[in-house]
């Protein structure tokens, strides 16, 4: 309980800077690096620091730095959709399971058990690989795989709210179940849901780029950090930039989102304890 140090807004500041830069890349990459995928076979692989190429080039003569900036979009957009989608499922099903309970609760927790019985990477790899899924199929599969934890999380916090006096008084007032669930309980669940969503974005980012590292997800030629990493294995001895830049981008982005989500969660928990 001596975590008072986190009170100083160091974490939002430290994590905010890289995240803001990534956000700019996502929104404006088509203007910042319009020629990111332009190939120049004559140049071939060059090491970092070569004139005009801060991080060098790959086999096709594409600039590693420009490719990485252009790859921010596919790295971040899918994970945001995954986190939003799985949290929407989580809120809908978790609220019903937690508040109404009964057979619905049992069914949903069995479904969650089934999906949690296997490692995410394995299921995502098998399903997207066998159906030849592109980017958005991968997103859909990951929404399915992420939803059980969200259902459980929402269910838990709904149950924690159900015993509180304000719910009792809402019941006494004769409010309908749907109204109690979504007008009264839901606003109290949302802060935790938001921080969980942030953590899910980070986790989804790592999973998505893992799949494209294995050659699934984004199509060939599309700029993507995971694909850049998998390509870099063949040029390790000639251009270390092709490895270090995308690797650091994935690690820093995931870590920043994780730290921010963790900080929010902790803050929220402290707040609810003091209340």
């Amino acid at each position, binding site marked *: 309980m001596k975590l008072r140090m986190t009170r100083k807004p160091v974490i939002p500041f430290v994590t905010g800077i890289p995240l803001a830069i990534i956000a700019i890349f996502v929104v404006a990459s088509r203007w910042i690096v319009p020629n990111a995928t332009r190939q120049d076979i004559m140049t071939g692989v060059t090491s970092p620091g070569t004139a005009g190429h801060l991080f060098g080039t790959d086999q096709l003569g594409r600039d590693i730095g420009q490719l990485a900036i252009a790859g921010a979009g596919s790295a971040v957009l899918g994970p945001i959709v995954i986190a939003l989608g799985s949290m929407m499922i989580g809120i809908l099903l978790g609220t019903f399971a937690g508040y109404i309970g009964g057979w619905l609760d049992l069914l949903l927790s069995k479904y969650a058990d*089934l999906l949690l019985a296997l*490692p995410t990477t*394995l299921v995502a790899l*098998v399903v997207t690989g066998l159906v*030849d899924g592109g980017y958005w199929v991968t997103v859909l599969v990951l929404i399915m795989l992420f939803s059980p934890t969200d259902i459980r999380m929402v269910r838990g916090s709904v149950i924690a709210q159900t015993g509180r006096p304000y719910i009792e008084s809402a019941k006494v007032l004769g409010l309908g179940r749907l109204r109690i669930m979504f007008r009264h309980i839901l606003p109290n669940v949302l802060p935790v849901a938001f921080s969980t969503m942030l953590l899910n974005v*980070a986790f989804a980012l*790592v999973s998505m780029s893992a799949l494209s590292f294995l050659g699934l997800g984004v199509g060939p030629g599309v700029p993507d950090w995971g694909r850049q990493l998998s390509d870099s294995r063949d040029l390790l001895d000639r251009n270390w930039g092709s490895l270090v830049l995308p690797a650091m981008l994935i*690690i820093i982005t995931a870590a920043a989102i994780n730290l921010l989500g*963790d900080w929010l969660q902790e803050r929220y928990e402290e707040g609810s304890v003091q209340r």
Partner: protein
Amino acid sequence: MDSAHSHRRLTQLLSRGSLTRFIIVRLAATGLLLLVLSFVVFALLHLTPGDPARNLVGVRNVTPELLQSIRDKYHLNDPFMSQYLHWLGNVLHGDFGESIRNNTTVTTLLSDRVMLTLQLSSLSFALTVIVAVPLGIAAAWRTGSALDRSMSAASIVGIGAPTYAVGLLLLYVFGLWFNIFPVYGSGDGGFDRWWHLVLPAITLASGLAAMVFKLTRTAVVAELNQDYVAFAQSRGLTHRQIRSLVLRNAMIPVATSLGLVFAFLFGGTILVEVTFALQGIGSLLAGSVTFKDLPVVQAITLLTATVIALTALAVDILYYAVDPRVRKRGAQ
């Protein structure tokens, strides 16, 4: 008389809160889970786009006779449920069919590869436990200290850091730059094998250690906040006595979750094996998925699920047997 006695004995055994009842219920649940999963895994063959028979032929020359023989062999003209039962019957005898990519049975292919994955999982598991558990205890003992805060932050980064990125960075620094460790491959067995597994194991352990660190820290902190600790302190028990009490209780949840960690590790080696070009179950799965080698994919998925489900079962039973509080809760 005798039957009345055995009946009473049985009800006693199966009464709420008894260990036997618990084991039977959990066994049944695990069996059901695996049955459902086996059904899903079998259905993969039909969910994959294209004619299942053609998918099973692979790149061999497709002749009508060959397609017919494949259909006969896998009973593809039978109703779906009867196909499934045939397949399940074979699987229960250890027969997953033949690999499409390699001309061997899936079972031979798996038995060649499983050892490496097992060695890799064990090594990273050992590394994780040796590093993360003591650090977690130390951090919990002094919450808010510099050690606690830096380790907690590091664990957040570690949980988020992708295995393949960490692996490639390690490979570059220690394999290519300093030239200490081998870069690719599984080694020639014996010590060389283990030497080849050091970097992959460290890679796998880095994410896992972060998780185990958090878990241990939370368990010890929760235990330290118990009333009996305050009581023991006010009674004047020594620091050492209290520590042994707290650790004994806190290690129950830690030890049980470690079982699950190991099981998941077994399925989580895909990325590391691909990164370091190791010939294990994980890289086999990745290759088989890309090649649509369905019998192999089915076998590995089901095998991993079985390992995880059985470990979860064992962990649950151990938990139940070791911790009287859980038994009491179950009885209520």
